[in-house]
Structures are given as structure tokens and as C-alpha cells.
């Protein structure tokens, strides 16, 4: 190989690097248009009355698993949780232990959406935070960024369970999934499955509608959100915490 040839190799290397750098600016494939089914006037939210949530009850979790075909792998470190029950014990021991469900908070300023490099995580006009499973590259940065530990990577191949819900497609291995507020039900005018399974402790509705039961209750009773200090404006509120 002559010296000139080697220089050409270096030049080609540089050209390749330039191609890789310029490629991000090119749109080779038209992005699919998202269906515009959500209304910007709505803002879906949830209120959970912790005083009515009993420690042993898992009705919301069971309903969610069934509705959304959320798999269990019999491995606590890998199991997928769209909603989970958390037991809280005051460190000072002054308050009684409480049990409450934790799920994606569908934040107004969602860090998962901010960090997603491909915009696979996105926020709908009505405030529901979703993951486009066809665009997720499985980088897991959203899982690093979410303070609610609301996301799970699909570690193993999955298949539709025997009595699974055909309305909700299963997610393949290698992508990240999370609670969708049962968006397929919302679009059909029904509440999320967890709320339907637990009408006593969970209230769901349009926060922008002053006449909705949830908006009224939020005005009437003191409520909290998890990690309000982070400024994410979560849309899951807790009463009695």
C-alpha cells in the first residue's frame, strides 16, 4: 500500500464520519402522523384517597394486568409494573403505616419525554404520556430519568396471555413500557381499568372541567402530589397522605 493510498483511507474515514454526522439532519423516511384523537382542552388526572386504600387489596393492579396484558416473569427485579402498591412507614414512627398505589404520574413536564432521544415518549394533547413502541430504541434513559420508577424494560419475549385483552397489543422485548391511563378506554369514553376496579379510593376525570367530580374534590380537600419539589406537575394526586 502506498502512502497516498493510506491518506485516501484516512480521507474516506473522515468522509464516513461526516456522513454519520450529517445523517441526523436528513429525513429519509416520512414520520408517521399521529392520530389526532386527543382533545387539547382536556387534562386527564387521577385522585387517590389513601385513607380508603387497604394494605392487602390489589384490585387495581389485577385489573391493570388483565386489561393491558402486563406480563409477570416471576422475577421481582424484572417483573413489569404499570401500577404497584407501596407501603409507607413514617421514619419517626409518629404516623400510622399507609398503603397506596403508585403509577405513571403523567406529568405536565415529564422528564421521560425530555430525555427520550427519538421522541418515542411523548405527551398527548390531553396530557396522557405515552410510549410509541415502534419508535422506542430501548436506550432506557427514560427509566433513569423518571423519579416514580414507573417504567419497565421488557426483558423477556412476551406473548398474548390465554384470556388476554386483544384490544391492547403486547410489547416486544427490548422496549420500555408503562401505564397509559388505559388510553384505549379513555378514547372510548371509559375510565382506566384500575379506577373501575376501585371506585372507592380512585377518582378519575378531566382536571380542566370545573364541573367534573375530580376537579371539585381537588378544590374541596387538601391533596398532595409525589415529589412536588421537582416541578414536574404530576397529574396523580393523593388525598390523606
Amino acid at each position, binding site marked *: 500500500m502506498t502512502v497516498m493510498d*493510506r491518506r485516501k483511507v484516512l480521507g474516506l474515514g473522515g468522509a464516513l464520519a461526516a456522513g454519520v454526522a450529517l445523517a441526523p439532519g436528513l429525513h429519509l423516511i416520512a414520520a408517521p402522523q399521529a392520530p389526532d384523537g386527543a382533545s387539547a382542552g382536556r387534562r386527564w388526572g387521577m385522585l387517590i384517597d389513601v385513607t380508603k386504600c387497604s394494605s392487602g387489596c390489589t384490585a387495581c393492579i389485577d385489573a391493570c394486568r388483565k386489561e393491558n396484558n402486563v406480563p409477570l416473569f416471576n422475577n421481582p427485579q424484572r417483573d413489569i409494573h404499570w401500577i404497584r402498591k407501596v407501603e409507607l412507614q413514617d421514619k419517626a414512627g409518629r404516623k400510622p403505616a399507609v398503603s397506596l398505589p403508585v403509577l405513571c404520574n403523567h406529568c405536565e413536564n415529564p422528564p421521560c419525554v425530555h430525555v427520550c432521544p427519538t421522541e418515542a415518549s411523548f405527551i398527548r394533547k390531553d396530557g396522557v404520556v405515552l410510549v410509541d413502541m415502534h419508535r422506542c430504541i430501548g436506550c*432506557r434513559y427514560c427509566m433513569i430519568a423518571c423519579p416514580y420508577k414507573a417504567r419497565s424494560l421488557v426483558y423477556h419475549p412476551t406473548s398474548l396471555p390465554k384470556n388476554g385483552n386483544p384490544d391492547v397489543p403486547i410489547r416486544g422485548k427490548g422496549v420500555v413500557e408503562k401505564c397509559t391511563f388505559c388510553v384505549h378506554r379513555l378514547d372510548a369514553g371509559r375510565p382506566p381499568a384500575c379506577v373501575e376496579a376501585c371506585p372507592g379510593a380512585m377518582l378519575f376525570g378531566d382536571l380542566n372541567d370545573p364541573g367534573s367530580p375530580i376537579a371539585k374534590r381537588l378544590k374541596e380537600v387538601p391533596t398532595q402530589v409525589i415529589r412536588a419539589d421537582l416541578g414536574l406537575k404530576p397529574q396523580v394526586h393523593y388525598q390523606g397522605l
Partner: protein
Amino acid sequence: MISKFTAIEGRSPGYFALLGLFGLLLALGAAAFLYVELQGHGVTNMTNQVIWGLPHIFAISLLVMASGALNLASMSTVFGAYHYKQFGRFSAFLAIALLSGGLAVLVLDLGRPDRMLLTMIHMNFSSMFTWNVFLYSGFLILCFLYLWSMFQHEKFTKIAGSAAFAWRLILTTGTGSIFGVIHAREVFHSAITAPTFIAVSLTSGTAVSVLLLLGVFRATGREFDQKLVQGLRNTLIFFTLLVLYLLIVEKFTKSYSPAFYEVESWILTGPYAWLYWGGVVGAGVLLPLAILFNRSLGNSPSGVVAASVVSIVGEFAFVSHVLLAGQSYPFNMFPGYRMSSPFLDGQTASYVPSFPEFFLGMGGVAIAALIFLVGIRFFRLLPEKAEAPESWHPWNP
């Protein structure tokens, strides 16, 4: 005055043994990638608590080191330390090799690496990852331009070298900011995380350059001026002290605030304290300084090589600590409360890497090593003799 640049002969059994070794590691890395790709990340030991495991540690260590590998070139082009000009080509080429290895592991550890092109089609400019796609590819271009100018058009070397220098500072800031900007993770959320990444890149990049330079010169029987060894030692001392300074400032700042007492005491005394004290502080700072400040060891090539090895271990430990401790520390969703759940809330996560993860990471090291080995064989990257000006007398501690 720089003696003539030449490629190495590359016909010795040792050279072919190294090619064979790294070729084997590359094959194992490729096999590990295919295994994980086909079976899913379930065959690794990553979990929904420790989401980024050993492959990310390898990838980020290589990327951080790549940025620092440009030190020797920058020192001559940007800061006028012309006795390092003879290592400029080597330095820029090494940066390209390390960056390629790191990027390969980063991409191949994606849950869906087949969708990698989507990062170039759908970009989210609020994501540090998107910025890093530009920063890494831009760094590659600038390193190639820098090399091209050093080989053929010296008049452009200053501008190409200065651009590459500025770019690598931004690049490592970007890498550190992947972690630093994440408010949810108390262990690594800090404005000082990115500067510390830069300081660690300076030490590890210099260390890997020292190792490879002294190794190649020794293996090929080329002369290496003792004064240059001392100069490199001094560079390593300076950068290591910078790391120490930033570590102290971070601990001082956080320990001042009661809000951080819990997480800081966990870092210093918890399950990853051994990695912090032994790896980040011991291997990353104290041991190299002890060797380099020693009158006898600090003046011998083998002493500087030993300090460089320990520095690289320290860099690996630093990245490991950021990732593993950062992810293992439980989320503090309800301050003042103890949490428990079937999703292991409130518990410190455990993680022991699997073999596929190790080999995937080593595959990246092999890519970097093979590019470097082939590069010094086919390109005139190194001087026949590494000389220092007679008038230059490096500081001696």
C-alpha cells in the same frame, strides 16, 4: 525538531499475538451481542432497578478516555507545548479508535439496536442523548480533519486542533450531563458531575496515551527521551489533582446541606463505599499521586506506567460508581418515609454483571485496540525517536 514519522513494521510474533487476542475478544463480543439481541436483555443481569450495566460502564469509560486521548495533540497545538507535537498524530488517531469502540458498545447494548437509525430521523433536542449523537459524530469529523491537517496541510493544524479541543470539552460535558441533569437520581445529580467527567477524561486519556506510547516505543526498540516521561508524569499529576479538587468540592457542597446527608452517608459508608474509597479515591487519585510523587518511581518509566494503569482502573471505577451506585440508591419518593413494595421500592438494588455483558464490553475494547494496532502498522503515526528539546527541563517534584 521531530524525527521522521514511520509506521511500525508489524511483523513480530508479539504484534500478531496482540491481533489474535483482540480478534478473539472481538469475536466473543460479537457472539455476546447476538446472544443478547436474540434472547433479549433477560440473559444479562440487568434489572428494572439497574438498567444500565457493565456494557454502559465500558462504553462510557471508552468515550471519556477518547476525549482525553486528544490531550497530547491539544497540548502542542493549543497550549504551545511543542515537544508533544510529535505525538499529535498518535493522539488524534487514538481518540478515534477509543471513540469507535465506545460507540459500538453503546449502540449494541440498546434494547432495539436495529432501530438505531431512528436517532437520526426523529430527534429530540431536549435529550442529552440526541446532543451526544451530534457531539460524538462531530468529534470524529474533527479528529479526522485534525489528522489530515497534521499529515498534509500543517497550516490548518492550529484551527483544526483548536476546534477539536473545544469540541472535546463540550463532548465530555455532554457525556457527564447525561447523568448530571437527572434530578431524580440523587447520587449523580449535580452541576459538578460534568466537570468531574472532564477531569477524569484528562487523567484517563493521558494515562492510556502514556501506556501505549511507552509500550509501543519499547516493543519497537525506539528511543523515548526520559524528559518526556517526566513531562507526561507532571501532566498526570496535574490532572489527578484536578480530579481530587472536584471530588472534594462536590462532597463539601453536598455535605453542607442536610437534604443530602442521607445519600452522602450512603455513598461514603453504604454497599458501594468500597468502590468509592477503593476505586474512585484510592485508584483514581491517591495511589497514582503516591507513585508519581515518589522520587524514584515517579522518575522511572515503569513507575509512570504503573500510575497510568491505576489511573485507568480509577476511571473505570469512577464511571462504575456513577452508574451502579447512582442506580442502586433507592428513589426517595416520599421523604421522611420508609418504602417497600413488590417492585423493590426502598431497597438498594443489587447487580452482578453476567458474562455476555462482560464480553460485549470487551468487544468495544477490542474494536479500539484493533483500530489502534492496524493504525500504527499502516499509518505514519509515531516518530522514529521521541525527543525533547535540550533547553526544556520539566518540573521535578
